[in-house]
């Protein structure tokens, strides 16, 4: 019996290593904001969603569609999902109530007793689970949910629960313990096996025997001899020896029942983990819809097409951290391997880049996406190469550090990947930076890697533009003529200036309060004005 809400035919592995660049993804795409919103205050949900989101690039189209179906049911019945999650969470707590410590866990009788107690608790929880299923199963239509509910209904029948209960009762050995054995080394008992003691039927036909003559008795099948002894009630060492023997007898079944309770616990643990992801989605959905932000279920397509197109795409992390609505962007890069984003400083380029990365990751892990519509290929790897603050350890110069990170990405890169660059190689002069970046971008593009690159390197952008054969899409951060930003990213060729002077003015001159207050849409870049200034010009 398996939960199988994340994969059709595979368990979730909470211990598998995260992708090597998980940390970079979290930092560059500001994923902690997302995880926080999904978790609310449930650390377990945070841990699970973090894992599921970050390992999104490992899923194939089928898995993503499978989860999308499960998710749709969840969004329609958030209450049921939360109830199921609560039941699974309750099961995970049982074990904490009865923990004996490792010393006692070396004795079969203790292990058996603990397993019996646990089994009884689990059986109660299982009944609760079944109750929910009985009440709500018919409302769910996705493949994942219907399969899950069907399994529960098939396997956890009344008859089954009674049988399980009987076993648990039988293992208390109220009418004694029957062991089968053979003779092993030194004629000691060995190969102990546990049997059910026979019901006492002695004496039923015994009286008949008195009528049978002795000679005939010898020919009749003999009742097998029973030999026995009783320990003296004060024979303490005898009692110990008896207990030792009993322990040998129940070792097998203690192991079995302990493993069974481990398995039940494992089942609930997995159920809890898988549900945690959907609970996270439900939480996020509620917060976005409260703000009136649109969401959509994205359309994943196979990687061979290298598609990417969207409408009204916004940065979900930004939307979560401000009160007002945020700007959405629309673009179609279905035909281009490379997208170059240029344009005004503080114009929303980084936000745009992040929104693409976030949407891509969310789609690939089976979530909804912060957009009106989103269609993209399923990439085998999603990498980010964002401008970083100075190397904290002072181990390497800035360009070294950047090139080092790039080289690490190339170590892990396949042609089925997506790479997001945010102002790469700005740490050297424009000519050098452009040349390094150009060679990298062209090689990736020729390999078929989907590249989205925000850059101020005009020489780079211009060079690509001049030789563009249609494989590069140029986007530009929009700007009103007076210098105020619209935070919209539109198609447009690169310009020689990034309008850094606007920024200068906004900080030193009169235009500054105009920029922040007149705009109807709040932008996350604003508080970062000082750091951007350094990199921008």
């Amino acid at each position, binding site marked *: 019996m398996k939960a199988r809400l994340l994969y059709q035919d595979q368990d979730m592995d909470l211990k598998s290593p995260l992708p090597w660049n998980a940390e970079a993804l979290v930092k560059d795409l500001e994923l902690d904001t997302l995880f926080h919103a999904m978790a609310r205050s449930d650390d377990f949900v945070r841990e699970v969603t973090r894992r599921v989101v970050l390992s999104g690039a490992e899923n194939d189209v089928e898995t993503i569609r499978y989860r999308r179906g499960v998710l749709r049911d969840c969004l329609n019945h958030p209450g049921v999902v939360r109830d199921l999650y609560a039941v699974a969470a309750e099961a995970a707590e049982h074990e904490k109530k009865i923990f004996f410590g490792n010393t006692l866990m070396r004795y079969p009788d203790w292990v058996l007793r603990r397993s019996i107690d646990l089994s009884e608790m689990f059986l109660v929880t299982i009944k609760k689970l079944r109750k929910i299923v009985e009440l709500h199963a018919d409302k769910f239509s996705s493949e994942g949910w219907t399969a899950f509910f069907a399994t529960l209904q098939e396997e956890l029948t009344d008859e089954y629960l009674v049988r399980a209960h009987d076993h648990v009762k039988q293992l208390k050995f109220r009418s004694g313990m029957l062991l*089968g054995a053979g003779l092993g080394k030194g004629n000691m008992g060995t190969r102990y096996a546990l049997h059910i003691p026979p019901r006492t039927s002695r004496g039923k036909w015994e009286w008949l025997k008195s009528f049978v003559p002795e000679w005939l008795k010898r020919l009749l099948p003999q009742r097998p001899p029973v030999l026995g002894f009783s320990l003296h009630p004060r024979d303490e060492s*005898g009692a110990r020896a008896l207990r030792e023997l009993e322990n040998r007898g129940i070792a097998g079944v203690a192991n079995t029942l302990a493993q069974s309770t481990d*398995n039940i616990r494992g089942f609930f643990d997995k159920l809890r983990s898988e549900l945690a992801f959907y609970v996270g989605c439900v939480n996020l959905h509620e917060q976005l819809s409260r703000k009136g932000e649109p969401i959509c279920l994205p359309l994943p397509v196979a990687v061979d097409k290298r598609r990417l197109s969207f409408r009204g795409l916004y940065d979900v992390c930004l939307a979560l951290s401000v009160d007002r609505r945020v700007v959405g962007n629309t673009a179609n890069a279905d035909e281009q391997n490379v997208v170059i984003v240029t344009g005004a400083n503080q114009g929303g380029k980084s936000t745009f880049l992040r929104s693409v990365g976030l949407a891509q990751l969310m789609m690939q892990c089976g979530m909804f996406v912060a957009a009106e519509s989103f269609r993209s290929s399923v990439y085998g790897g999603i990498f980010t190469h964002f401008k970083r603050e100075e190397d904290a350890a002072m181990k390497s110069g800035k360009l070294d550090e950047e090139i080092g990170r790039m080289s690490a990405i190339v170590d892990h890169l396949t042609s089925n990947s997506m790479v997001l660059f945010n102002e790469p190689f700005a740490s050297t002069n424009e000519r050098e930076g452009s040349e390094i970046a150009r060679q990298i971008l062209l090689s990736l593009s020729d390999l078929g890697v989907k590249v989205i690159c925000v850059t101020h390197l005009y020489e780079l952008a211009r060079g690509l533009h001049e030789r563009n054969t249609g494989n590069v899409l140029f986007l530009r951060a929009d700007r009103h003529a007076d210098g105020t930003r619209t935070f919209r990213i539109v198609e447009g060729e690169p310009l020689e200036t990034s309008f850094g002077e606007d920024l200068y003015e906004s900080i030193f001159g009169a235009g500054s309060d105009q920029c922040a207050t007149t705009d109807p849409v709040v932008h996350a870049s604003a508080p970062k004005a000082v750091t951007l200034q350094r990199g921008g010009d």
Partner: protein
Amino acid sequence: MTFRSILFPNTGDCIPNEGLSAPDFFFDLNLDQIIDAITAGKTEYDLKSFFYMPLQDAEAITWRHEIMQDLDATPLLDNIKAFAQRMRAMREHLAQSGKMSCKLQKERWFLDAADIYCDVVTRLAHDLSVAEPRSRGLLAFRKYVTLYAGSDSFTSLFQRTKKLIADLSAIHYTVLMNGLRVEVRHYGGEPDYASEVTATFEIFRQGAAKEYSFNFIDSPQMNSVEERIVALVALLHPDIFSALEQYCAENKDFQDRTIVTFDREIQFYVAYLEHTARVRNAGLKFCYPRVIRASKEVRSVQGFDLALANNLIAEGGNVVCNDFHLKDGERIIVVSGPNQGGKTTFARTFGQLHYLASLGCPVPGTHAQLFLFDRLFTHFEKEENLKDLRGKLQDDLVRIHQILERATPNSIIVMNEVFMSTTLRDAVALSRKIADKIMALDLLCVWVTFIDELASLNEKTVSMVSTVVPENPALRTFKIVRRPADGLAYAMCIAEKHRLTYSMIKERIGS
């Protein structure tokens, strides 16, 4: 059926008495280390006394060579090792039987010991028949074992043992424990309950489950309840258990003496081959030497000190091999040259090779012709003995005197740095006198000395020197070669050792 020993071809030869102690020269030649390493882990066989008995008969040496070669070249070595291991297990079972207080346990351990013995003999007979040994020793033993394994007494032991084991293993009983009441009866086909429980909870399986392992008191002795239960099981099967009792009474001495002796003696070969296999794995060679008394033209190619090699291999070091040969009237190898250059090792190698050859063993090297000595003497420098009031020089002379008193023309002497505690003039004079006596006896001798003059006394002496890397005299090659002693490198090295060369002094003064 007569077969006595796999070590001594002539049944008249004495079987060594247990109290034999190591010859005097063992310590000087590091043979004690070698024999310790060879016999390590085999103390139960008390093999050392075999290694204390050099053979005096070239024929006996060849006899051992044949056996050694048989074992070395065929699967027999592995067969014998397996045989030894089972014999050991058999003895352990017997020992366990002796320790038991409960009769039913005692008897079963005894039965199992005999069972192992039956298998071991059958197996040995089979292995020997398949392996086709060529040595006279193993052929004779094979004949013996084949006859023994086919004898009435053995086959009857075999059949009774197997029958009893089968009967006992077939016993299947149940124990019902209810409160303080324990009942024993025949097994009545009750199904296994654990598997029913497993099956019921199978639907929750989530991949491989963790196994719970439990602490049990693993004493071979039964506890009081087990004893009472087994006693009842015996009552359920009176025929089997009375047969067991009778069996034990009738087969007290089931082991054949010759097989037992063989088990011990063959370990002499096994131990030596196991030890040399480790050394051979490091790329070093062993050979079967020609051992003769008719000629003193000895020769060894690529020989090495087995004790040193064993230590070096353990540390991952490199072993240097050396050659020697004496022809015509040459009798004395005089070894001189820089200290720490391998002179003592060379002298030990000479002694070790001769001694190991006299045991009938393969010796280090790719080729060897060695002298079958009657006695081997060593004279190595000793710590001053304070109890003894003799001075060191006197002590040297007394010991050499004793050696020369006992030596015959068929003896070998290995001497290492004598007369160190007197003036060079005296040392030269005394050494010459001793050399005269050695030559008069026509003894084979290796003499490590710092006295160059000895190297060129007459046609009986051969000079060999330890060598250094020409470009860097501080580096030793540990090669000992036939060459006139020049004494120069030696002085330079001493100077170096004390940091007194031209450049070193300048350096020291300068700093």
